[in-house]
């Protein structure tokens, strides 16, 4: 299906006698977007206007407009994010899958309407299928049902899984998945618990 934006952009280019792909134009759009954003939002609860400031990863992914990334940009994003992952100092990569399940079900956290003193959830079920018994799951991400059963529970798998939850962009540039550790959405312990939910043989994910 053709993207409307692209088609329209061509039509509009003629109208405005401006190109859609020139660097100056992209820069203009970024500048006018930033100006509009700052004038259109007010701080509320825990969400200040600083949330509108993009980091490099967000800027590069925005510029891609949903199109496939050039390989060099993808590699740049992944290596920059890989460097941010902090593995647990105690060497334990997994926690309690029962707590992980609650974190996976919980959608609150970081919204201006949320109480900032409570822990945030990961809302995994919003996008992923996990346990077989929870039918209310989303499909924005792949099914993670039997994630551990299919991959085993080796230290290597634990390390990848912890890292993926900590910073998804390290493994897939411009992934739709939040960077739960890097952006301090989840604590280290919470990431361990969600890792356990995915890998523990007793977890409902692996039944």
């Amino acid at each position: 299906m053709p993207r409307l934006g692209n088609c329209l952009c061509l039509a509009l280019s003629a109208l405005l006698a401006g190109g859609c792909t020139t660097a100056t134009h992209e820069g203009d759009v970024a500048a006018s977007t930033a100006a509009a954003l700052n004038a259109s939002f007010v701080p509320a609860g825990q969400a200040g206007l600083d949330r509108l400031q993009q980091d490099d990863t967000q800027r590069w992914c925005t510029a891609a407009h949903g199109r496939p990334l050039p390989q060099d940009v993808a590699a740049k994003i992944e290596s920059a994010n890989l460097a941010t992952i902090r593995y647990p100092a105690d060497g334990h990569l997994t926690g309690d899958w029962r707590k992980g399940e609650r974190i996976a079900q919980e959608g609150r956290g970081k919204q201006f309407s949320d109480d900032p003193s409570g822990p945030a959830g990961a809302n995994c079920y919003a996008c992923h299928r996990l346990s077989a018994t929870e039918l209310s799951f989303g499909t924005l991400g792949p099914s993670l049902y039997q994630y551990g059963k299919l991959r085993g529970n080796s230290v290597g798998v634990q390390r990848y899984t912890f890292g993926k939850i900590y910073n998804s962009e390290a493994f897939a540039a411009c992934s739709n998945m939040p960077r739960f550790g890097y952006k301090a959405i989840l604590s280290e312990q919470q990431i361990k618990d969600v890792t356990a939910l995915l890998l523990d043989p007793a977890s409902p994910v692996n039944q």
Partner: protein
Amino acid sequence: MNVAHGLFALLALFVTPVALAQDATSDEIAKYRAELQKDNPAELWETRGEGIWQEKRGPRQVSLQRCDLGLGEGVVKGAYARLPRYFPDADRVQDLETRLLWCMVRLQGYTEAEARRQPFGDGNEHKSDLEALTAYVASQSRGSTMEVSLRHPKEVEAYRLGEALFFFRAGTHDFACATCHGEDGKRIRLQDLPNLTTAEGAAKAYTTWPAYRVSQGELRTFEWRLYDCFRQQRFPELVLGSDVAIALTMYLARNANGATFDAPGIKR
């Protein structure tokens, strides 16, 4: 392996019991939604909104029947399907709510603060006049063809800004509108997500707002839909009638051009 076995294996691969359960769940939920469409409490807001539209109100005791929604003073029929648009008197692109605020201030003599006092109902006793007015005006476009213009440069500017904003990733969760609404056939939990980058997706979404929101017992406007999407995106609070609100509305309304407007609807 004979053909029958092969076919069985193939079926087994795709038709897992959970997939079947999921389909059955979706079918039953589709029936539930169809049942709710029949008698939509949004009508209560439409009726209230019509009363507010006709009533002489504000310091100047004037009714909104002198408000020009783009098709001439007091013309409501079909107006919503042609918004947002550029209004020369305001020298700005306005969506319906922004235009209503403008008329409440310029015509009826309310202060900006008074007009903006309650953009959205609180889910309890305190209902919003603006939501009721929007429900009424939108209901008068039911069956109209979406026909949003890009003739004026400011309309073009709003559309382009809307498109840029649609892909703008930021906040604690790196979310953009496109995160949830950029692909076909996706779901969040059990809710289907329209792909708003396609004409079909934009039409399906835009032509069914405003809508009675079952989970809140409130009539919600498209401005509210944007406001609450940004809340869930972990952004700060979107200002009603702001450039961002109007630009995104313009992007989606224009992408829905040609579709038949069919709101107020009813949603989860």
